[in-house]
């Protein structure tokens, strides 16, 4: 075997090993990827398609991932780009009426409504279905940020990189989005 052949062989073996490691590490994150995808789109089927496409693209483009950087953020960037590209979000967020209520609004309403005023138990008055449907009612641009930060546990900086928006925009969307979420939750909880 010539020297070139043996060095090619080594290169191929190293590449195969790196690829296997990359795929394994990416798959270890799949539960988190699914959890976030499930809240970015409206149906389970769409979420499954989105996750599958994300992994197909990640495995195809694995060489463009720089080892040692944040793989989780890299995968979620693919996920959110695919979600936007596929036009699932083609309806832009409607011009949204600013919510007048302050940040303490939901707590104040729940407290007024009576029952336990234990602030750590009071949330349990909201049912799981109410929470999930209230989140689904938040306009896309705001919801993407809430889902990445609250469900994906990303920092503001990571969420900004994933969505390709400034950190200040992450903060303002998060703030407005959470107000919308609380407004929706109050409507649902107090209607009952």
């Amino acid at each position, binding site marked *: 075997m010539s020297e070139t052949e043996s060095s090619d062989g080594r290169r191929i073996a190293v590449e*195969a090993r790196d*690829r*296997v490691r990359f*795929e394994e590490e990416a*798959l270890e994150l*799949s*539960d988190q990827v*699914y*959890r976030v995808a*499930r*809240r970015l789109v409206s149906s*389970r089927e769409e979420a*499954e398609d989105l*996750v*599958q496409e994300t*992994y*197909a693209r990640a*495995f195809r483009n694995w060489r463009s991932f720089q080892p040692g950087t944040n793989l989780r953020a890299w995968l979620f960037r693919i996920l959110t780009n695919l979600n936007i590209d596929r036009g699932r979000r083609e309806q832009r967020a409607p011009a949204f009426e600013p919510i007048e209520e*302050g*940040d*303490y609004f*939901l*707590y104040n309403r729940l407290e007024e409504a009576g029952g336990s005023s234990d*602030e*750590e138990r*009071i*949330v*349990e008055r*909201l049912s*799981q279905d109410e*929470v*999930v449907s209230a*989140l689904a009612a938040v306009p896309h641009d705001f919801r993407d940020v809430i889902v990445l*930060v*609250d*469900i994906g546990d990303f*920092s*503001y900086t990571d969420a900004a990189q994933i969505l390709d928006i400034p950190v200040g925009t992450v*903060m303002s969307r*998060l*703030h407005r989005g*959470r107000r919308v*979420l*609380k407004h929706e939750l109050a409507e649902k909880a107090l209607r009952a």
Partner: protein
Amino acid sequence: MSGDCGETGPCAKCEELLQPYVDRELTAEERAEAEGHLAACGYCAKRYRFEESLRMYVKRCCEEPMPTELKERLLSLRTPLA
């Protein structure tokens, strides 16, 4: 940002710091300022704790295990070993 907000209603600063406080995104200095206020103001302390509980509760409500079948489909996307 001093005293109890229960009488006057929360000041703008309390609301401004609420979100980044709960997200642990405040600088050390801002965090100390928020904590100093929370130690003195039961009104805000309750609402900050509620906000933290709400955040965790939303996350818990959104837990949904990945379907096994999808997990298998992802495994099938792996590059076959030569």
